[in-house]
């Protein structure tokens, strides 16, 4: 008896550690992102120091080749990354969940067609689809990057939603809801979505991480937010030419990007372990 009781507790301890690390890393970026709305160390586009200065008390991670403070740009980068991640996941989730639910309810013919379309879309790399969408819109902007990534992510969300929803729809409590007189939209809202939400939310966290990296890639390629917005991807691209003389310009945004991506993944992993533990207990 004590063995049985002890093991879930021990596992829960590890779960919390992963989750805590994830929450702390992501929380740090959120805190910095929010801080940029009210306070910045320097005017982001002001030439506040010499060119390509190293780290100093005045400029914690130095300056870029125009003499702008890199730490200020890094902070703004956090806000941009979070905005893109949240926006892309929100769009991807809305489109993906809708299509997934539709497919789960669809007639066999439509379901097969949707499933095949999703598989084809998923076969293309996220970045490629996002580049295509940005290229199709007239100007590269933060908004177009968010929409592009959202659309690119939606196929994966749709496929997952479809499978999860189908699994729920065969449950007796769905039949019970039908014989209780609940309409299909109501059944989706009160039974299907709450039951697939835990797994979906873990996936959303992972997609968030993907979106952040993909946004950096887009910006690196010049397809992301245009210059007044500092993005880690563009910082990396700008630092590329001076990476040997001023390595900090490339290392700093690299670390920022990786820390957010790892944080989000730890968070997703922690959430998943928590859900698994809850499932085992019930």
């Amino acid at each position: 008896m004590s063995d049985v009781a002890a093991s879930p507790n021990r596992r829960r301890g590890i779960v919390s550690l992963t989750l805590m690390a994830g929450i702390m890393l992501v929380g740090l970026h959120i805190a910095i992102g929010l801080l940029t709305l009210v306070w910045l160390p320097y005017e982001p586009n002001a030439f506040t120091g010499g060119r390509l200065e190293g780290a100093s008390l005045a400029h914690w991670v130095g300056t870029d080749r125009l003499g702008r403070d890199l730490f200020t740009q890094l902070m703004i980068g956090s806000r941009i990354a979070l905005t893109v991640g949240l926006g892309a996941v929100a769009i991807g989730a809305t489109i993906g969940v809708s299509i997934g639910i539709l497919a789960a309810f669809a007639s066999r013919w439509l379901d097969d067609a949707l499933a095949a379309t999703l598989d084809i879309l998923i076969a293309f790399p996220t970045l490629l689809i996002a580049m295509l969408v940005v290229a199709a819109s007239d100007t590269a902007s933060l908004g177009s990057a968010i929409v592009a990534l959202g659309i690119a992510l939606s196929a994966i969300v749709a496929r997952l939603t479809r499978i999860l929803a189908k699994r729920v729809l065969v449950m007796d409590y769905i039949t019970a809801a039908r014989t209780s007189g609940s309409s299909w939209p109501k059944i989706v809202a009160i039974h299907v979505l709450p039951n697939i939400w835990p797994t979906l939310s873990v996936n959303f966290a992972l997609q968030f991480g993907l979106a952040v990296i993909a946004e950096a890639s887009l910006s690196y390629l010049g397809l992301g937010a245009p210059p007044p917005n500092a993005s880690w991807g563009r910082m990396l691209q700008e630092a590329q030419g001076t990476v040997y003389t001023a390595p900090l310009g490339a290392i700093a945004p690299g670390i920022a990007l990786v820390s957010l991506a790892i944080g989000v993944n730890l968070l997703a992993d922690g959430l998943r372990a928590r859900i698994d533990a809850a499932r085992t207990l019930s």
Partner: protein
Amino acid sequence: MTLISVDRVSFGYTAERRILDDVSFAMESGDTVGLVGESGSGKTTLLRLLLGLARPDSGTITFDGASLDPRNAAFMRQFRRQAQIVFQDPYSSLDPRQKISSIIAEPLRSLRIPGDHRQMVADALSSVGLDADAAGRYPHQFSGGQRQRIAIARAIVAGPRLLLADEAVSALDLTTKIRIVELLASLGTRMSLLFVSHDIGVVAALCRRIVILERSRIVESGDTAEVLARPQHPYTQRLLASVPRLSLKDTRS
């Protein structure tokens, strides 16, 4: 008065693989009927048709004299109030993410039944022998037998005239099974009960009449005591021969 009448109902995707073939039976108001047959005999499909979840390919089903048509929304709303079901698996029949109060109140909300829903849920819980404080908890906090009581509470909360039970005690251990059968028997005095099972012992204990289904067809039906005492069809005879003596003796009274 006839509550349910199934008249020459067939259902199946192809003519060669009929799930139900020319099935007819009637159920009087206030009656307790056991529908017996092994897996694959078409019991569950018949229940789905009786609940209006699917339409028969041919034949008609009438409830209270009116034709049961899933496409007639107004009729179905009235019908849903009058006929409810309890499932076999107490684990998949309750939404794990809803509190017991929401689960039991769902028919009240969806069928827009007026009244104090909280009180009606409490009454339903007490009639299945559960404390009122169960309402605030989640399904995983209950045992299989308690979950089945919750499922029964959901089925009776709207005051149906017909309760359908699909193998409702098959997944339970023996002592729990007996308690749930007793509960259903007590409910059977208040409403009509159609009890689907492969367990002829339980049917004998619970049902006044019996309908025996074998491979998509009804092979025998009648008064339970009579059918069990003098089974006419070879399938019924085989079914009876395979019943463990003890349970039959216990439940005959």
